[in-house]
C-alpha cells in the first residue's frame, strides 16, 4: 500500500484503522474499515471503477465528493452507489458497471 500517505509533515502519521477485506469484480482486496470504497480501491492501484453504459469508455473517480456520480459501482447488489462516499465494510462485494444495449440511441440517428 505505497499509495497511503503514512507520514505527513503537518497532519502527522496515519491512524491505522481496522483492516477489512472486500472484493471488486471478484478479485480480493484489503482496505481500511470506514474509508470510502474509492479510496480503498485507489490505495490498491485500482483506478477504473466502471465503463460507460453506452460507449464503454473507462471511468474512475472525478469529483470525489458525490457530485459527479462517475465513481458509481454496485455494492452488495445495489446499483448506482457512489464509491467516493460509501464507507467500506468487511466482506463487501463490489462490482463495476459496463456497456449496456442502447436501442433508443441507435434508432434515433435514422429518424432525425
Amino acid at each position, binding site marked *: 500500500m505505497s499509495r497511503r500517505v503514512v507520514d505527513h509533515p503537518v497532519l502527522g502519521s496515519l491512524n491505522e484503522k481496522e483492516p477489512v477485506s472486500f472484493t471488486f469484480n471478484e478479485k480480493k482486496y484489503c482496505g481500511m474499515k470506514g474509508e470510502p470504497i474509492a479510496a480503498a480501491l485507489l490505495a490498491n492501484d485500482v483506478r477504473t471503477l466502471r465503463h*460507460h453504459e*453506452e*460507449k464503454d*469508455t473507462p*471511468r474512475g473517480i*472525478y*469529483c470525489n465528493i458525490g*457530485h*459527479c*456520480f*462517475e465513481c*458509481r459501482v454496485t455494492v452488495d447488489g445495489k*446499483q*448506482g452507489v457512489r464509491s467516493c462516499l460509501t464507507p467500506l465494510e468487511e466482506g463487501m462485494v463490489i462490482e463495476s458497471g459496463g456497456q449496456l444495449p442502447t436501442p433508443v440511441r441507435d434508432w434515433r440517428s435514422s429518424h432525425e
Partner: protein
Amino acid sequence: MTENMIICRCEEVTYKALVETANQYNCSARELKLRTRAGMGYCGGRTCRHMVDKMAADLTITKQTDITLKYQPPIRPISFGHLGADES
C-alpha cells in the same frame, strides 16, 4: 482533437455537437440541452451545466441571464423502489 472532446461526461456529448447545435439553432441553454442531451445524464448536469450555459451565452445571440438550465427534483438519482417506498 478538441472537436471530439467530451463536454457532458454522463451522456458523452462532444464539444463539436454543442458548437454545431448552438450555431445551427442559435438557441437557449435549455434548448441546447434538449437537442443534445448534455446535462440530462446520471449526475443531473452538476458537472457540465456551466459549460452548456456558457456555450449558449457565447455562441448564440441569447443573453446569459435569459434562460439558463433549470433545476428540478429529484436532484439526486433515486430508485423507483425508494420513490414509491412505504414510509412506515
